[in-house]
């Protein structure tokens, strides 16, 4: 009991301190620290997992509780934001962490998959594409998390965290190359190769005496996790602003960041809700059509038994830590850092990739010190894999830092400025847009991974209806 209280105290002190540092860093425009802390918070997920598996038998129950509480936390967050918007309207921006409460109301109306009645008499209508989108995201996310937990349980936290990170990075890089969104140069190839070596060393370091049914199930779970996670990332990346939204954002450009923030939080909460619903649906189907003797069927039976004591389960503090502190908090920080991004040297997604290695690195520490998993590994090989994994961050930083910077001056056709700015604003390679007086109308600062990508972008700009003249200047150095 004393040990449990001590663990709760340490855990909360750590997460709350990290949250405060992240918010302060964000307010001071040091958003890469916010990204770093987000990765650490995600990496801490095994900590409550170890405590919860001591009390809860079905991993379906743990996954369900995580989504359920994250949904409650998300809606609570939106509700508080709406209240604050209503009562602190005059002081719309909290400068200490650069966040506004405006626009939540609009976002809820926009993104709920049920539209309000068009007239007083007509019924509400279901927005089918939105519903399908959320159902798909919910399905992939719950499968990812559920099987991630199975992999944790059967193969260990350290192994799961490292292999998942290595495999998803390699798969997504491959997918981006296929879609011609990323080019593989020699440094990036070396980076991926080093990640692969870290993965192989991790596999080698795991000491397995015999391949039991559970180990095989763990391996299958990890493969399912990796595949569904990759699909989830691709699906969620496909969600872009609609034209109406782009126009709306442009009409209040100084508030565009807050618009994006409220949009992200509303959509996130809805997708937690749909993860909860799809998990329940999946469990009901498996319960109705059980596969005799399978691990899943036993887990489903346990899930429905445990669900009868929902209130007792909700009284476990670790459930709330998992759902709020390690799910809602990091996602909130993730969006906050993205929406207030100001660094010119590297883009937000470049820092996310560089600092992403902190997530498995944190899980390694949690696995060793909280889960006491050290005995499962050949420690020397694991240490080597950890060092290699950590070193990939330096290599990736070097690679991203050396990408091609350019300044592009544009002359724009009469009456096309608004349309052009809308098009440019959401291009991830454009880090700065300014409208100016004089010989040119717009200045862009861009970051590209290669000469080829920059050339393609300039050709696209030249081909636009809105542009009269495109002048490109390659930036070598920034001083002051």
């Amino acid at each position: 009991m004393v040990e449990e209280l001590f663990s709760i105290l340490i855990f909360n002190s750590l997460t709350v301190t990290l949250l405060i540092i992240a918010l302060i860093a964000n307010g001071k425009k040091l958003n890469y620290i916010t990204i770093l802390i987000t990765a650490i918070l995600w990496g801490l997920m095994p900590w409550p997992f170890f405590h919860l598996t001591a009390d809860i038998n079905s991993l379906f129950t743990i996954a369900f509780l995580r989504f359920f509480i994250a949904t409650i936390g998300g809606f609570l967050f939106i509700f508080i934001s709406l209240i604050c918007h209503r009562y602190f309207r005059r002081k719309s921006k909290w400068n200490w962490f650069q966040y506004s409460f405006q626009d939540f109301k609009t976002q809820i109306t926009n993104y709920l998959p049920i539209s309000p009645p068009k007239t007083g008499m007509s019924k509400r209508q279901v927005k089918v594409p939105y519903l399908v989108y959320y159902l798909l995201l919910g399905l992939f996310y719950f499968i990812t998390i559920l099987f991630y937990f199975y992999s944790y349980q059967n193969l260990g936290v350290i192994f799961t965290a490292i292999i998942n990170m290595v495999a998803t990075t390699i798969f997504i890089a491959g997918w981006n190359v296929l879609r011609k969104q990323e080019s593989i140069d020699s440094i990036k190839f070396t980076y991926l190769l080093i990640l692969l070596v870290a993965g192989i060393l991790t596999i080698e370091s795991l000491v397995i005496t015999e391949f039991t049914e559970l180990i095989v199930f763990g391996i299958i779970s990890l493969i399912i996790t990796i595949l569904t996670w990759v699909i989830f990332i691709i699906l969620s990346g496909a969600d872009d602003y609609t034209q109406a939204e782009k126009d709306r954002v442009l009409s209040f450009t100084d508030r565009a960041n807050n618009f994006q923030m409220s949009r992200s939080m509303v959509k996130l909460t809805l997708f937690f809700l749909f993860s909860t619903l799809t998990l329940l649906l999946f469990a009901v189907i498996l319960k109705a059509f059980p596969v005799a003797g399978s691990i899943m069927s036993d887990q489903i039976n346990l899930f429905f038994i445990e669900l009868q004591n929902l209130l007792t389960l909700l009284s476990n503090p670790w459930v709330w830590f998992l759902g709020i502190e390690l799910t809602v908090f990091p996602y909130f920080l993730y969006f906050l850092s993205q929406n207030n991004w100001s660094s010119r040297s590297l883009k937000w997604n470049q820092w996310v990739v560089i600092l992403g290695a902190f997530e498995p690195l944190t899980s390694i520490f949690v696995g060793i010190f909280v889960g006491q998993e050290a005995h499962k590994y050949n420690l020397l090989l694991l240490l080597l894999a950890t060092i290699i994994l950590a070193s990939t961050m330096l290599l990736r930083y070097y690679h991203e830092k050396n990408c091609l910077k350019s300044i592009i001056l544009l002359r724009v056709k009469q009456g096309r400025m608004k349309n052009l700015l809308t098009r440019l604003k959401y291009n991830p390679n454009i880090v700065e847009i300014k409208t100016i007086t004089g010989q040119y109308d717009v200045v862009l600062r861009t970051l590209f991974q290669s000469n080829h990508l920059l050339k393609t972008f300039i050709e696209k700009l030249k081909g636009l209806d809105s542009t009269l003249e495109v002048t490109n200047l390659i930036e070598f150095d920034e001083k002051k």
Partner: protein
Amino acid sequence: MALIKALMVVNINPNEMKNVIKQLQSIKEIKQISTVAGIYDLIIEIIVEQMEDLNDLIVEKIDLIEAIKSTDTFIVLKDYK
């Protein structure tokens, strides 16, 4: 009062780049200097409190740097990103 932001593109005489950058770095209103390849040599970002300060800066400081061949100044209307 809202600050005035301006961008200035600069062309420099050959072999004078280091010297010009050094002199520009000593001007406090210049917030950033970028060396570029293309039709210009430098792009500098200036922030001043009022138009008169921008005029003073150009006439009394930048224009006096002999190695600068030509400049063009653009006032920033709005930062969109």
